[in-house]
């Protein structure tokens, strides 16, 4: 009856191949993770570093949930992970996170901030974010290779009549916001694309030859000339530029502004090469192909460095977007080799994430056991890192039971004009690219201490714990710890807190003390940071 049709046979064959590929990939992930560890350990030997120990399961689990999913795990998830006897469970947890909605939500927001940083700092440009995120989300769901994403972005059609209103209508998912955020100006697009995708800062060469760096003014404007065809139209000097842009596809030269010699430069790559122009290929396309080429010395390394900084809180090159020759990486060979591996694996972002988080280096504890671990660029213990505004908000929601888990899984509604997360966005906006030196402000402290999100009289998690029949004080405290700092309390901690609860005579007083413990946990460094 059941004949295998040729069609099915092909499908089956493909399945077998796919399964084989997955195993092959798992091996290659491990090989790349080992490569990371080899380089990091080699430097430890030279520097006489005594590295920290491996993290315990709860520490690792909270960490990857925040780094990959952008939100702390639920009580149940922590319990199951800690209790799971599978030897391979860390790797499986990473796979689970990468295939779920939290990864998509968190990295959509992460990449939007990288590619469209203006949406974080300029309220007028926030309207560009939804459609940009719409585009990113779909690419991340498809796990589109990074080089293709960047090519799509750099060659996005700009035929709209009014780019500033696109965001409001949310009509279409498109990365065109990149161009609107740069005001459609060739110089801004040049500076922005070089910095974001190549880790090359040519901005200063816009006005003058840079005294330290290799970039010359002529080079800057030669690079900017790839965007020369975009003709921005301004409605008036006063308003936000309204993009009624026209693109002249074959314009590939620019006059250097205010140049005493009135030079006009032809579109030229940053390395000085002249492009080979092909018919029907726009100058933006030509540039995009050069930027994302496997042998571009910057593209893969810049991306590897960004993801490294995402997970370790500090890039191999720091600042994260400055790969200039004068700025030497902490581990140059590692950066080169990881860049090569990333390119060799078709710029697969998930591959790179897997390799990083499966390394032993990433899985070290953040507990300090030796003073040689204090220099963050040695990566000898996991750095304590600040969270994004979204992560703080979503984690507070999850810890306190303020939102059902499926809502917490999705990104917060970022662009509601007066959403309750507004304060979080304002007060926790990133001011530094280095999560390892994010500082707490007074207004942040006031918000977490006294804001509605920590008003324990109204928190469901406390209701649930009190309503659950026959929980001992120890079990109640255990649940509060799992819900907030995603670990079990240490024995001494538990004893101290149980005593404080049990010393209270009335149920009301006990409830009050439990509320105080919850409040203190929500305000703690351990809750508010990733570590």
């Amino acid at each position, binding site marked *: 009856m059941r004949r295998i049709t040729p069609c099915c046979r092909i499908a089956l064959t493909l399945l077998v191949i796919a399964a084989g590929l997955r195993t092959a990939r798992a091996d290659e992930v491990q090989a790349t993770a080992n490569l990371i560890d080899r380089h990091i350990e080699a430097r430890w030997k030279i520097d006489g570093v005594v590295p920290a120990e491996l993290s315990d399961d709860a520490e690792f689990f909270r960490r990857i949930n925040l780094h990959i999913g952008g939100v702390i795990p639920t009580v149940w998830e922590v319990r199951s992970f800690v209790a799971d006897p599978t030897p391979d469970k860390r790797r499986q947890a990473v796979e689970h996170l990468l295939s779920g909605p939290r990864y998509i939500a968190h990295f959509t927001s992460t990449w939007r901030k990288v590619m469209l940083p203006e949406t974080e*700092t*300029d*309220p*007028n440009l926030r309207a560009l974010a939804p459609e940009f995120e719409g585009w990113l989300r779909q690419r991340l769901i498809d796990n589109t290779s990074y080089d293709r994403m960047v090519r799509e972005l750099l060659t996005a059609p700009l035929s709209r009549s009014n780019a500033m209103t696109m965001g409001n209508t949310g009509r279409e998912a498109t990365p065109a916001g990149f161009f609107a955020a740069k005001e459609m100006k060739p110089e801004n697009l040049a*500076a922005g694309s070089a*910095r974001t995708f190549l880790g090359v*800062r040519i*901005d*200063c060469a816009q006005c003058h030859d840079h005294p330290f760096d290799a970039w010359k003014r002529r080079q800057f404007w030669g690079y900017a000339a790839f965007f020369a065809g975009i003709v921005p139209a301004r409605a008036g*000097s*006063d308003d936000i530029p309204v993009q009624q842009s026209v693109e002249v596809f074959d314009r590939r030269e620019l006059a250097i502004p205010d140049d005493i010699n009135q030079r006009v430069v032809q579109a030229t790559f940053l390395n000085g090469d002249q492009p080979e122009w092909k018919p029907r290929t726009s100058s933006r396309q030509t540039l995009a192909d050069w930027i994302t080429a496997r042998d571009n010395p910057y593209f893969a390394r810049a991306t590897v460095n960004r993801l490294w900084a995402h997970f370790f809180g500090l890039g191999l090159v720091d*600042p994260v*977007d*400055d790969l200039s020759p004068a700025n030497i990486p902490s581990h140059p060979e590692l950066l080169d080799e990881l860049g090569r591996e990333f390119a060799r694996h078709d710029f697969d972002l998930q591959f790179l994430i897997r390799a990083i988080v499966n390394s032993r280096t990433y899985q070290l504890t*953040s*507990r*300090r056991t030796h003073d040689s671990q*204090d220099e963050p660029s040695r990566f000898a213990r996991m*750095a*304590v*890192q*600040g969270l994004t505004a979204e992560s703080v908000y979503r984690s507070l929601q999850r810890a306190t039971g303020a939102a059902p888990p499926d809502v917490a899984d999705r990104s917060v509604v970022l662009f509601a004009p007066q959403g309750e997360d507004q*304060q979080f966005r304002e007060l926790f906006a990133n*001011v*530094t690219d280095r999560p*390892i*030196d*994010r*500082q*707490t*402000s*007074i*207004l*942040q*402290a*006031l*918000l977490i*201490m*006294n*804001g509605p999100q*920590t*008003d*324990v*009289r109204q928190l469901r998690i406390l209701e649930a714990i009190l309503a659950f029949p026959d929980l001992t004080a120890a079990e109640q405290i255990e649940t509060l710890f799992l819900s907030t700092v995603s670990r079990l309390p240490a024995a001494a*901690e538990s004893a*101290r807190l149980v005593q404080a609860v049990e010393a209270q005579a009335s149920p009301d007083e006990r409830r*009050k*003390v439990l509320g*105080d*413990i919850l*409040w*203190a*946990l929500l*305000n*703690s*460094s*351990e809750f*508010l*940071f990733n*570590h």
Partner: protein
Amino acid sequence: MPANSPHAPFTPAWSVPLSRRRWLQVTGGLSAAAGASWLPQLAACAQQTGVRPRSCILLWMSGGPSHIDLFDLKPEHENGGEFKPIDTAAPGVQICEHLPKLAEQARRLAIIRSMSTKEGDHARATHVMRTGYLPQGPIQYPALGSLLSKELISADCELPGYVSISPFIGLAPAAFGPGFLGPQYAPLIVGSSGPGQSDAALRVQNVESHPGTDAPQVDRRLSLLQGFEADFAAARPGLMVDSHRSAYASAVRMMRSEGIKAFDLDDEPAELRDRYGRNTFGQGCLLARRLVERGVPFVEVSFSGTEGALGWDTHQQNFPTLKTLCGTLDPAWATLMDDLGQRGLLDSTLVVWMGEFGRTPSINNNAGRDHFPAAWSTVLGGGGIRGGQALGKTSADGMTVAERPVTTADLLATVVQAVGLDPTKQNMSNVGRPIRLADPAARPIEEVLA
């Protein structure tokens, strides 16, 4: 924690506002010695020097005020427009007829009529005037308020060093932030000047504990938190946990301080509140005085207009709009000078009035004036300033600076020097390059410095 950490003085400090008795109760006396010895030391220090630390109040005019109608009138020229000049308390110095109260304060003011800057775009000009630098590349330049308050704040000030009242930050948010100095130097923002905001909002958000929590309970919570922090810091020492503890210490200190009462404007006599003007800017100026009185070194009051967010941006109907704006500006600013003077605060308080640029001398077809950075005015007054003068000149038509051009950097260096600081002092930036308080090319305006 490194010894030179900026947080060192605060480390165990949420204990400080507690009474010694309660502090002992809460902590079991563990670090009581440190807590108890801390405050008297500071008090002694302040008494010893006897010098009141300097403060600065910046009156920020969003949109670019029309200097030619306010401080550099040209009654002889067709560009002059319809406003008439009036004499002031300073011989030979004339200003706009719609600033009569301010005219009485002119001995305390130095008008700079020869500002010459380059930026005519709101966002870029705002960034330049408020940070001293163009937004350029990766360096996150701090706002003037962050720079000065970092240098001027004294350890016994219970309030943050930089308070920003009703700012309209939308156009150039970075110009209102601490930049590479970090959030510790971020402004405490009260009120916001979006359309429809009233002076009711001039309070600190989230400064009250949750309803129903009494003082002992708050102490218990903080003591629990202190326990968690101590454990975390022992295992994972570093900047992050230090910064967290320091911010909480400052926040708790502010919540419990007498200083927080600065925001209760109802404590002031109704008559004085009326004199400042019952509007956001007027009450903001009053709040500025109350904050300076309590040791806050930098307060800015933004005046973004009575209706829109960029009220000074008078491209149309320049004259009636300005008249309305002057009706708010004049009593608020004049009363501020007077009030500071009466309370003996004026010698130690520099008052700066400026926007991002001036406006075109020529009047456009909509009876308005457009953006004009080439030749315009700012005003300095109070502490550190030799008042009663107008410095520099513009040409008869107002189009160019005729005498004594002053750049943005010159002006900011003057401000820095007027509050007793060295403009060449450096801060390390986020890109590892040291940045001076004011641009190295700047020359402070000696003529206006007292």
